[in-house]
């Protein structure tokens, strides 16, 4: 499932922990619009490089990118020590 919210949290020594929930769905909307705009150029690049090899690979970029983004939900990265810390959680 496509993640819609990402939770960021940063902790630094001597400061209050800072965290917020970001609606990453907005990023996906902008990214989708950008990908639609770039699609004709990608098709052109694929046709031009078809014989040399990369052309076919270019055509699968969008499905692969969609697969990665679609499965990011549940990704949780947390690292830190006694003083510093960072958390990124896609939900």
């Amino acid at each position, binding site marked *: 499932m496509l993640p819609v919210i990402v939770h960021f949290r940063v902790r630094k020594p001597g400061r209050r922990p800072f965290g917020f929930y970001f609606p990453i769905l907005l990023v996906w909307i902008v990214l989708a619009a950008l990908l639609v705009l770039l699609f004709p150029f990608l098709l052109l690049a694929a046709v031009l490089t078809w014989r040399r090899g990369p052309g076919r690979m270019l055509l699968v970029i969008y499905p692969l990118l969609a697969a990665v983004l679609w*499965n*990011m939900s549940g990704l*949780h990265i947390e*690292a830190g*020590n006694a003083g510093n810390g960072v958390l990124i959680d896609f939900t």
Partner: protein
Amino acid sequence: MNEERRKILDMLAQGKITVDEAEKLLSAIGEPAPDAGNGAAAGPRSWKYLRVQVEPGPSSEKGDKVNIRVPFKLIRAGLKFAAFIPQNAQGQVREALKEKGLDVDLSKITPQDLEDLVSNLDDLTVDVDGRDKVRIFCE
């Protein structure tokens, strides 16, 4: 995992028995051998995430702590991007891996190999106790 199997694997981890002995013991108690064909998605134990946890041990100086949870579906999708690594970069990666003692040719890894690799990660459990305690497992 039943108690007998756990004991055998514990003895193997502690170095009390060899891999061959562990295999014999496991077959003696009737544990089925791991089958490469039973992937994470196909088997009854359908794990969703690969977890990596690092916790500071008693002798740890900095107290570093890491907790990473990666969805298996994301790993599968991400591995397919390996096909986009240019040929000349693959050579450099191979050289770098060889220097580290890993003789792996990325160009010979097929999508099926990657699928088998991820499918069999569900049996992976690694516990390392040193300065920090490292756990890699599936959930």
